């Protein structure tokens, strides 16, 4: 990489089901919060990038009325209409090109505006799948879950343990939407069944939330921050559409992860990563994510969760924040994973804090069954 890029400020909202706040106020709070933490004012911003989606917001040009609250007034500006973790990538590219020193990335969705699951049907092939009418992101996830579980003999219990872990972790996360301290396997397995085997507690909630990060060049980062978190590696890849991709493995994520690992020179995930924050829209997805990230061999995701290695006190904790299962404000979700990882590295994760975190992986996705993925390797200062 030509030069280094650091994260020097962040903020996230208190994600909830129906935020008693306008989009504009929600965005303003996180934009301001991130800038304040970074020690900069609006005038210091060289570029602002938004991640929101017209359909999710029910507005054409979803970012139109967010220019002011985002701090984009008379700034270089654009919108990445994907998960916020991708918007952060664009911020990184602008900084590395040498034309911008400081970037503010703001991601926001109020899922309460309109059911994102209905919107997922608009992502389908309009000439075929959408006409046939059986698919949406939940039923498609159910099909993938069943294919994966049958092929590798993964039990519903093992999938439920992911929910147990993440919703339990979220109990200590004040920003999480769905926190369930003391949650049991029975509660998970008895929650409402939508499309077998997907249940209410094995899929993410519909959340309102926003998140922001400030990126800076190495020079600016050292000037402004005592605690910059460096982007050591990044990789992304878009997989084929559902009809023409391998549904047993998240191949796109595997490609993205390999690119990130190569850039960050990671050869042994367990030895070199202290934790991972991944975007698991569905509990079964986290098991497939383990495999794609190389945390275990193909088909061994169930075995890995059984070993407790990805629990908070395990060898490689995954989603100590509670992950997407605890809060899923769609376009903000991946950027929240970045922020949670940054918090851990900086020692600012409060009750969720794990000891000795220096290097973390953060993952964001977009599209049905995680079609497009981005992976970051983040590292603290020595």
């Amino acid at each position, binding site marked *: *990489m*030509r030069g280094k890029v650091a994260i020097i400020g962040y903020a996230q909202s208190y994600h909830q089901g129906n935020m008693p706040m*306008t989009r*504009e106020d929600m965005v303003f709070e996180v934009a301001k919060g991130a800038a304040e933490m970074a020690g900069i004012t609006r005038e210091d911003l060289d570029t*602002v990038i938004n991640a929101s*989606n*017209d*359909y999710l917001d*029910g*507005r*054409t*040009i979803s*970012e*139109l*009325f967010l*220019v*002011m609250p985002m701090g984009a*007034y*008379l*700034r*270089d*500006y*654009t*919108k*990445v*209409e*994907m998960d916020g973790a*991708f918007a952060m*990538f*664009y911020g*990184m*590219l602008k900084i*590395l*090109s*040498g*034309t911008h020193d400081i970037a503010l990335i703001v991601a926001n969705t109020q899922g309460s505006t309109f059911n994102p699951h209905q*919107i997922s049907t*608009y*992502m*389908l*092939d*309009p*000439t075929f799948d959408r006409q046939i009418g059986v698919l949406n992101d939940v039923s498609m996830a159910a099909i993938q879950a069943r294919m994966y579980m049958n092929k590798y003999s993964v039990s519903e219990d093992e999938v439920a343990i992911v929910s147990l872990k993440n919703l339990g972790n979220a109990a200590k996360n004040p920003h999480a939407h769905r926190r369930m301290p003391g949650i049991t396997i029975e509660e998970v397995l008895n929650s409402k069944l939508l499309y077998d085997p997907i249940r209410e507690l094995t899929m993410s909630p519909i959340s309102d939330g926003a998140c922001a990060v400030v990126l800076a060049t190495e020079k600016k980062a050292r000037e402004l921050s005592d605690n910059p978190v460096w982007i050591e590696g990044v*990789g*992304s*890849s*878009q*997989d*084929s*559409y559902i009809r*023409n991709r391998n549904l047993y493995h998240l191949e*796109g994520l595997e*490609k*993205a992860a390999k*690119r990130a690992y190569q850039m960050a020179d990671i050869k042994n995930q367990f030895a070199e990563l202290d934790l991972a924050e991944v975007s698991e829209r569905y509990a079964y997805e986290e098991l497939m994510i383990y495999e794609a990230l190389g945390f275990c061999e193909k088909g061994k995701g169930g075995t890995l969760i059984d070993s407790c290695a990805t629990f908070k006190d395990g060898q490689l904790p995954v989603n100590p924040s509670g992950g997407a299962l605890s809060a899923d404000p769609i376009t903000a979700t991946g950027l929240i994973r970045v922020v949670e990882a940054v918090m851990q590295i900086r020692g600012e994760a409060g009750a969720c804090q794990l000891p000795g975190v220096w290097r973390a992986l953060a993952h964001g996705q*977009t599209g*049905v069954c995680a*079609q*497009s993925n*981005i992976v970051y390797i983040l590292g603290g200062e020595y």
Partner: protein
Amino acid sequence: MWRNVAVIGVGQTKHGIRREVNVAEMIGEAAWKAIEDAELAPEEIDAIAIGNMQGFGGICQAELWSGDWFGAPGKPLLRIATGGTTGGSVAQCAIYQVASGMFDVALAIGFEKHSDSKEPGATMGLAHVGLANFFHLLACGLDFKTSLAWGGGVGAAAGVSGYQAANYMHRSGCKIEHLDMVAAKSRSNAAKNEYAHLQWPNCTVDYIANHPRFGEIVAYPLRLGHICPASDGASAIIVAAEERARSAERPAWVRGLASCADEENQMAENAQGVAVTDSSEQIQCKIAATKAYSMAGIKNPREEIDVAEIYQPFPHQELIYSERLQLFDDGKAWIPLEEGETQIDGRLPIDPSGGVLSTNAIGSSAMQRVAECALQIMGKAGQHQVPKDVKNAVAHGWGGSTNFTVVTILGDTPRLRR
């Protein structure tokens, strides 16, 4: 430290009504044309940038379904959307993808398939810009007419542009005749552009002004003949790093780029009022232009720019933006128009391609401004190639309620000399 990048390939579909292809095929058409124009193998594309306005075509993140059609599987891809200037922002994304040093060759595609919507003339997509605000105001107890007025006529671009034209005519020497002149010039130029939509060869001012249908005033001061069509189409460019670009015959080097966002014009968040009282002022365009020219090392744009592709779905915008892009004095752009300077064979041709006035597939239209500038520098603009040496060209785009601006400067020499 800047990395020299250039446009080495351009691809466009015929823009118009394209019912014989689905949107995936249409995107693929432009992408493959660009890849072939750049003489690349698809495997050589390292990254992709793509964008459109979802509401018009009725598909959410259409590039996810259609990725197979343009070589996306396995590639890093970014989806960009910024209203009308989406295509310009997508082009800039590809430029940054390469300029960052992370990728060597990037493909950028802008597209729109308006005909897939059953509503006339992109109505639904446009209405949804302000519809939520409009109903919010009604729910707060405001009456229908006031809500509509505060909501800027709800139709974003179209609603605001009427106000903008009136503002502009009030503060400059521009009259309706000048709007007729711009429209006539655009439609005539478009007739020389094989990919354009509304091609009216040798279109005259008289035709625009006195036609029983097109001459009718739709929303003062705009006639029907002044309004852009809603087109289907896709356009694509290939951006490459210097080492790769040097193998192209005549690359169009990126010399400067910038974007800037102002507060929304006319419309406001939650009816809080807006500070922009004159939407023809376009402060953010002045800022973006200054930044881009400075990057490009251009000190005297009106002398150094050889051709301009300005985003003008409405004719007064060609005049306004040519002033904000420092090509003519404030309020005076109508003079060079009258004197023929901006004709295709004039001193400073504006929109030799016919511009957005003649072809408007929203996601594609601002990309076409960059593509057309590249074609002019590369000498590949065919019948609408300007008959002069093209050293520097400026591509402009606006989006939102005329409050987003994107400016890209291309030239025949790289930004950094070795």
